């Protein structure tokens, strides 16, 4: 594997992308789990599909259009739930098939329909390029800065939103920032995990950390360990057994979760 890593740039980029996305997911996942936003993550992932399809048709920047469609989706959800027009989950349930159907319709008009669809749905880590790496690093910086600036605000927001709002925490700003970095993380992870398997990155590390930690700092550390170990193990297994990395990483993460939480000690 090391020889191939030295020889092939695409493999180095794939490994680097996997490491960075795992790092990013470790910060995002606990919030997704504690705020019960699993469905939003799924919705944003599906929304990304519309942007990716537009980029594919225009032969344009996939990251730009992916971000655009996921952010538009996230803003819709945020706006409608804040205005109490519809519940958050209803809004996601309504918009998810709309964005997905839009993407499928657009892609159906391209020649590489089946190949593209499969890559977007289940991921293709070998498609990662340098721009993707820069993008992930950018999202990591954004997420880490938000964490550093608003660490306490985020903890109070998750712990008791009503009281946090009353005593002066800017809960609308915090929820918007969270929505943004969840959206950006989903776009960053989509080439590795694909839309369908996104949960392995944005849900599983948080679920593991929640089951095994008793402080928010501990949660982030354990989420980081889980995310890194399961991704790198999955990546290595995929390499040696010639398997698609996205599904292999997802199954590895699930196996690690089951094994570790069976012997958990808080």
């Amino acid at each position, binding site marked *: 594997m090391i020889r191939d890593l030295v020889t092939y740039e695409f493999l180095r980029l794939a490994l680097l992308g996997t490491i960075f996305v795992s790092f990013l997911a470790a910060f995002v996942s606990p919030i997704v789990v*504690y705020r019960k936003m699993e469905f939003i993550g799924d919705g944003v992932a599906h929304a990304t599909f519309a942007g990716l399809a537009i980029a594919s048709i225009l032969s344009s920047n996939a990251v730009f259009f992916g971000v655009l469609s996921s952010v538009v989706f996230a803003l819709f959800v945020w706006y409608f739930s804040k205005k109490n027009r519809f519940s958050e989950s209803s809004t996601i349930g309504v918009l998810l098939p709309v964005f997905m159907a839009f993407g499928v319709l657009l892609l159906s008009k391209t020649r590489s329909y089946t190949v593209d669809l499969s890559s977007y749905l289940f991921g293709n880590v070998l498609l990662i390029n340098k721009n993707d790496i820069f993008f992930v690093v950018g999202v990591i910086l954004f997420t880490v800065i938000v964490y550093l600036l608003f660490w306490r605000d985020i903890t109070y927001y*998750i*712990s*008791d939103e009503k009281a946090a709002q009353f*005593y002066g925490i800017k809960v609308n700003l915090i929820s918007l920032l969270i929505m943004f970095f969840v959206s950006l993380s989903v776009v960053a992870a989509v080439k590795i995990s694909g839309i369908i398997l996104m949960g392995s990155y944005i849900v599983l590390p948080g679920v593991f950390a929640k089951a095994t930690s008793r402080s928010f700092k501990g949660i982030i550390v354990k989420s980081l360990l889980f995310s890194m170990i399961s991704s790198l193990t999955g990546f290595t297994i995929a390499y040696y057994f010639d398997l698609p990395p996205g599904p292999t990483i997802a199954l590895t993460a699930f196996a690690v979760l089951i094994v570790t939480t069976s012997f958990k000690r808080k």
Partner: protein
Amino acid sequence: MMKIRVENLSVKFGEYYALKDVSFEIKAGDFVGIIGPNGAGKTTLLKVIIGEIRDYNGKVEVYGKIGYQPQLNTVNREFPMDVLTYISLPLYVKNRRFSKIEKERALKMLKKVGLEDKANDLVGNLSGGELQRASLARALLSDADILLLDEPDSGVDEMGKSTFYELLYDFKKEGNLTIVMVSHDIGLVFKECSTIMCLNKTLHCHGPTEKISPDKLKEMFGQFDVWIRGDKHYEIEHRERSK
């Protein structure tokens, strides 16, 4: 001295009135219990007073600093936050950090509410009564002279309630607090509060506790979904609701 003045307050959600033409005044040192059936507008009234609902008709004036205790079920008990951090929220918001002095102040407050040995425990491990006292400590750390409590006794056992109200009286005496409490438990309101407000969209009665009889209330509200304090009224209520 006036603490809260509400004049012709109406709140509408779509076509539906949550509150209609409500007017009252609350004086300094009052301990007001707001009672009414589900959907009577009790929590809406508190939300208007704290400024969470701004879309209303009428006039609301507050003279003082409010400390607010939302319903205990708004607390995410799965999230690992220690009790000291939990109660320190108003102190953090002031300076966006915790100084040593503030930490000591929070610890003193925990001692006052009888939770000094729980400072490092997780909020999720507290009993209903302990969480209620921790939330009270949090409200008091905001230097409030008006306390708004939204159903502070739901999910708390009788012993916990009794401890809570003893504490509340002590703090009331010590800081000349004005307390406004929403409750489902009529018996408790009659026992603890000096003034009662009966709300069901409009204000049906407002006056000193001794001038309002429970029988009159029952008559007024008809199919009331809470039970006059008596033998095991809580168990009856829960059984009825779980049907």
